[in-house]
């Protein structure tokens, strides 16, 4: 029987194994060791949620605490990546992209193109995403579509421990800049997790469940909601095919189109916003490439076009839940 472990353990293990394998891999970020220059434990925090715990003890100076200067250290990770290191920088919350975005989208993303194909920037920016933590509007967003929009960046949004480990190892070995998005509500999720290192190629969707009636494309934590909906609907004889793209850039367009060709119906469930978000993007893909396959209008299940609220009742309303997914599926199945 495969080992069970958490999403958090998967990230930690991927980092540890890659640091063991390749001495050019370093980690930097706010409190990634925690305790630098304090009188207490030098491996005190391991990041705000303990994801990098133990790595400083094992790898010493290759795990670098930074000042709260995201522009400087995200930029430094990018500069170091062009000079022979493979930095993994931790941007504590994706919401903080606002204070360092230039280094990511104007610098890292564009070097290769602007420099005529002669640059490689193997940097990984790990960052926490998502609502549900009662963390309010500046610590809860799912902003990965903004990175997905930028040519030159790759974007991974794992939905389970296995994918988290495999995609992070791929991110570190990859020679392009990668934004690696970790949903804060998934850290405690348990799943099968092989102990040995392995990688998952980018741009290959995972079929969570197969079915002939409706395709549900779900990303990140929303794969859970889609799976629960799929289970509930199966009891009524509605067979959902659940496609988890795993990376939004590159996006496995072929798998989505092939599934829609089979089912003729599409529901997209995403926690990023409804405007210019992944749901709109995938809906556009299918509408322009596979309109003739569709038997019913595409349904999207997303949060509203609002900031993330603090109040728990409102935040729960904000986050797409299983019931909304079930309803969206029934909306387009009932006609037949």
């Amino acid at each position, binding site marked *: 029987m495969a080992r069970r472990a958490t999403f958090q353990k998967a990230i930690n293990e991927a980092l540890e194994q890659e640091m063991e394998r390749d001495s*050019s891999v*370093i980690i930097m970020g706010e409190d990634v060791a925690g305790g630098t220059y304090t009188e207490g434990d030098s491996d005190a925090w391991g990041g705000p949620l303990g994801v990098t715990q133990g790595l400083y003890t094992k790898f010493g100076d*290759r795990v*670098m605490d*930074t*000042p709260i*200067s995201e*522009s*400087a*250290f*995200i*930029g*430094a*990770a*990018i*500069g*170091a*990546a*062009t*000079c*022979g*290191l493979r*930095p993994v920088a931790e941007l504590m919350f994706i919401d903080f992209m606002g204070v360092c975005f*230039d*280094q990511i989208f*104007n*610098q890292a993303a*564009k*070097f*290769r*193109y*602007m*420099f*005529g*194909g*002669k*640059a*490689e920037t193997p940097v990984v920016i790990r960052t926490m995403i998502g609502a549900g933590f009662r963390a309010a509007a500046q610590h809860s967003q799912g902003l990965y579509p903004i990175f997905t929009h930028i*040519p*030159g960046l*790759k974007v991974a949004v794992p939905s389970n421990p296995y994918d988290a480990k495999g995609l992070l190892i791929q991110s570190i070995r*990859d*020679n*392009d800049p990668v934004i690696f998005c970790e949903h804060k509500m998934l850290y405690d999720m348990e799943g099968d997790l092989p102990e040995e290192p392995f990688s998952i190629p980018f*741009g290959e969707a995972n079929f969570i469940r197969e079915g002939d009636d409706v395709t549900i494309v779900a990303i990140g934590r929303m794969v859970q909601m889609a799976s629960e909906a799929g289970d509930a609907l199966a009891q009524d004889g509605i067979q959902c095919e659940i496609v988890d793209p795993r990376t939004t850039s*590159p996006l496995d367009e072929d798998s989505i189109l092939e599934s829609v060709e089979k089912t003729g119906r599409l529901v997209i469930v995403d926690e990023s916003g409804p405007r210019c978000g992944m749901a709109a993007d995938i809906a556009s893909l299918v509408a322009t490439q596979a309109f003739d396959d569709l038997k019913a209008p595409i349904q999207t299940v997303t949060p509203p076009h609002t900031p993330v609220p603090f109040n728990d009742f409102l935040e729960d309303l904000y986050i797409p839940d299983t019931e909304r997914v079930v309803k969206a599926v029934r909306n387009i199945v009932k006609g037949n």
Partner: protein
Amino acid sequence: MLDLNRERLLQAYETMKTIREFEERVHIEFATGEIPGFVHLYAGEEASGTGVCMHLDDRDSIASTHRGHGHCIAKGVEVKGMMAEIYGKDTGTCRGKGGSMHIADLDKGMMGANGIVGGGPPLICGAALAKKTLKTGGIAIAFVGDGGSNQGTTFESLNLATIWNLPCIFVVENNGYAESTSSKWSVSLSGNATDRAAGFGMPGVEVDGHDFFAVYEAAGEAIERARNGGGPTLLECKLNRYYGHFEGDAQTYRPQDEVKNIRETKDCLELFRKKVTSDGIVDVSDLNAIDQKVMKLIEESVVEAKAAPNPAEQELLTDVYVSY
């Protein structure tokens, strides 16, 4: 005269002269409308880039500014490729996909001119960290203008470089104007970026950026300190640009005859020629021979750039990713 023998002096002169003639020619050619986009010329500031980069080799990295042509040439980027790049041609350093503001040659340690003011300093912290971690013996240098010296990226980088004790230098080329705004107003401490260094606990040195020898000496000390693990330095070169912020800038914010007076009294090439010939180390004929060589190179660069092909249609889609 420092550690500069005759050969090194001629090398310094050739670099400065190449930058000057490159920029003077781009100024002329841009006016014809044949050069696309916009360009920011380094003419007048040659002693700074040259005096700093004379100490560097391919182990070392620099990040540049909008006004990057001079830094590129001083760091050894091939001149014909640069000219072709400015024309947007396939034979350009970046195959016509970067242009004037993005010329880079990572093999030479030139990490790019930069279209974002203050974009370079964080990158240079990373380059310096890589050199320190990988023990290459290299150092890294961020050039910023007086405008870039006011960006948060620069302040954050000064702090990070200090606390990580990075082998890097921040060279502030203060030419008096951030676009059209005086640095005496926009840079606190009456325009003295040097004085900010103390706030970060690093040495701050101000030099006359028209004087190659002053720049060379100050940069040499800072670079030696960085190479020996002594940490970062802020070096401010006070200098002037001969042209506008960009080509086409009417420069109505500058006093009449400002540039004319500087050209007559403080021109870095003239100061250099006077010094080395009066010291008797170099003959005027040696310098004139370099002038001829440089003029020929620039002429060929322009002729070849104009004749070079545009990138092929498929180049629109290549070089976005290593693999995708």
